[in-house]
């Protein structure tokens, strides 16, 4: 916010100089295209309520497109609707529908190309291909938009908010539903993704690729086809997010692949098939997260070194931690495990016996996945117990030496 405030003030200052052009069906200016053509730099287009059947509107000068009572801009499935190629453009309060679907070009409802200082807010998008597409843009803000798609298949649908080669963007308080990927980032650095709600998307709620130094916090990702994927990125911070009900045969709350030096704290992972699936990720700090009622709370797929798990709550997961090797370089310390059966004689709140989060059964399932049919059978409970007493198969240094007695 503080980064964006100065340029907002500049915008307001500039507005004082610009004039307002009214666009309505009975006005001298009755289409957006005409409005943009007649406007001077830093003018405001005040778009009155009505339906405007237009597409390929190119905003090539610094303007404010302000909708009054949500005017409808209907692209009639012809192609892209608004393309912003100038700096200092504001789009506010429009209702954009029927973006064209194409298999060769990514038509978007609003596309920002190589621009800075833009603001897209209070926009409602429906029946779209791509929603808001930021391409090589910087220093902008996407705030409080509602994107409701009708995606069914991955191959013929687009993403809600897509950032490609962007820098210093804030994406906050948006609602994204029923698109392919709710929010998609590729090669975008210093992005803040905050308080968004991304639900019921065909593929991922949030998808990160090759994007460094980004923060995402306070977001809710619920019931997405595969959850959230964070891949090939460095220095990501994730705080206070909720990952919920990504419950399907190939779903996970969050997938981390090739992520280094990240911080994951105070998140809630609830009712996911896999809470976090980790692959090739190093030096990640997991603090104070809640893992509740997941199939697997944490699934470690290998090549993960120097990660630390502390003060997390592991509550009623079928498997707390699953490992596919005997090697362990990650530390577990001071977590609360609902399956912990130890005692605390000195009453310091820390269990006196270490807890081993990897059960033998989870090791076996990793090796031979079909053995999962024996889930909850008496025999499995017996061998899990014997493994607990004397570990043979599971990594023997993988344990929490100071398990908490009470939920954190």
């Amino acid at each position: 916010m503080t980064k964006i405030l100065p340029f907002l003030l500049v915008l307001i200052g500039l507005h004082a100089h610009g004039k307002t052009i009214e666009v309505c069906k009975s006005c001298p200016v009755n289409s957006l295209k005409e409005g943009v053509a007649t406007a001077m730099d830093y003018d405001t287009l005040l778009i009155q309520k009505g339906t405007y059947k237009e597409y390929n509107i190119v905003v090539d000068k610094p303007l404010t497109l302000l909708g009054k009572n949500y005017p409808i801009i209907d692209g009639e499935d012809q192609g892209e609707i608004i393309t912003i190629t100038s700096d200092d453009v504001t789009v506010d309060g429009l209702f954009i529908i029927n973006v064209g679907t194409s298999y060769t070009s990514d038509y978007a409802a609003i596309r920002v190309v190589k621009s800075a200082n833009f603001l897209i807010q209070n926009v409602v998008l429906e029946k779209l291909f791509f929603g808001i597409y930021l391409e090589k843009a910087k220093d902008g803000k996407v705030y409080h938009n509602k994107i409701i798609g009708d995606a069914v298949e991955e191959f013929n649908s687009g993403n809600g908010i897509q950032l490609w080669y962007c820098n210093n963007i804030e994406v906050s308080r948006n609602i994204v539903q029923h698109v392919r990927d709710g929010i998609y980032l590729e090669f975008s650095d210093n992005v803040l993704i905050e308080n968004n709600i991304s639900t019921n998307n065909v593929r991922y709620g949030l998808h990160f690729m090759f994007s460094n130094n980004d923060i995402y916090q306070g977001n809710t990702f619920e019931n997405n086809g595969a959850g959230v994927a964070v891949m090939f990125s460095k220095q990501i911070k994730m705080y206070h997010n909720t990952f919920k009900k990504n419950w399907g045969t190939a779903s996970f709350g969050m997938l981390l692949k090739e992520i280094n030096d990240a911080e994951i704290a105070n998140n809630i992972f609830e009712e996911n098939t896999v809470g976090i699936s980790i692959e090739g990720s190093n030096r990640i700090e997991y603090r104070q997260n809640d893992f509740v009622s997941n199939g697997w709370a944490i699934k470690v797929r290998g090549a993960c070194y120097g990660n630390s798990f502390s003060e997390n709550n592991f509550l009623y997961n079928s498997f707390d931690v699953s490992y596919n090797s005997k090697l362990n370089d990650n530390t577990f310390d001071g977590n609360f495990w609902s399956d912990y059966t130890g005692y605390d004689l000195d009453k310091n709140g820390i269990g006196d016996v270490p807890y081993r989060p990897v059960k033998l059964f989870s090791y076996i399932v990793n090796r031979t996945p079909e053995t999962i049919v024996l889930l909850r059978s008496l025999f499995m409970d017996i061998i899990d117990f014997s493994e607990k007493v004397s570990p043979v198969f599971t990594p023997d240094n993988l344990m929490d030496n100071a398990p908490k007695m009470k939920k954190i």
Partner: protein
Amino acid sequence: MLKILKYSFYDLMRSRWSYVYFVFYLLLGFVLLFLNNDVSKAVITLMNLIIVLVPLIATIFGVMYYYNSKEFTELLLAQPIKRTSIFLGQYLGVAGSLSLSLILGLGIPFFLYGLLRSNAIWDFSLLLVTGTFLTLIFAALAFNIALSNDNKIKGFGYAVLLWLFLAVIYDGLFLMSLIVFEEYPLDNFSLVATMLNPVDLSRTLILLKLDISALLGYTGAVFKKFFGTNFGFILSVFVLILWTIIPIWRLLLKSRRKDF
């Protein structure tokens, strides 16, 4: 047959063990609900208990009842009554009274704790249906064993062994074979192996109806089809019915030929 069924049933209803069994489930239900205070969680805990305990009790009870009422059976055989009706009547008496204890014992506490208002009612009814099926299956297996062995000690031994085998050892062997043959596609094999054991079958049936079935579908397409659709449920119920009919049928066959 109905007369003998009635006699056996009332005989058992009067016996102390039926009450012990009933009171045990009643207490279990109340304690579980008191500790959990959540009907759907209690159902899961109960499932773990039922698939182990119900077969054990049905087996022991079945064998015990047969040996205890042997003299009376011999007396009945001297009367002009069809053999099938004698044995079927006794069997249904035992299985019926055990099922009744189970259903009432667990039903009452859950009912009092507001089961009808909870959405766990289907899971719970499925649990009771599975429990009843297990009682029928294991009582029939027990009668089969008792009919084939005149020696009481041997009969008891076999009965306990049968329970141990199906509840524990079978899963062990199953697991071993899965690990030994892990190089091969095992989806169909493991589903068939599950069907061949009524204890595993009941466990699968209940898991199918719980959310947890998504975990099982994670493994592959065959599992996904089985655990993710109604196909698995219908097939499991069908096989469970087969498991009930076959031992009863063998019981009748055996009783007709048996020389007393």
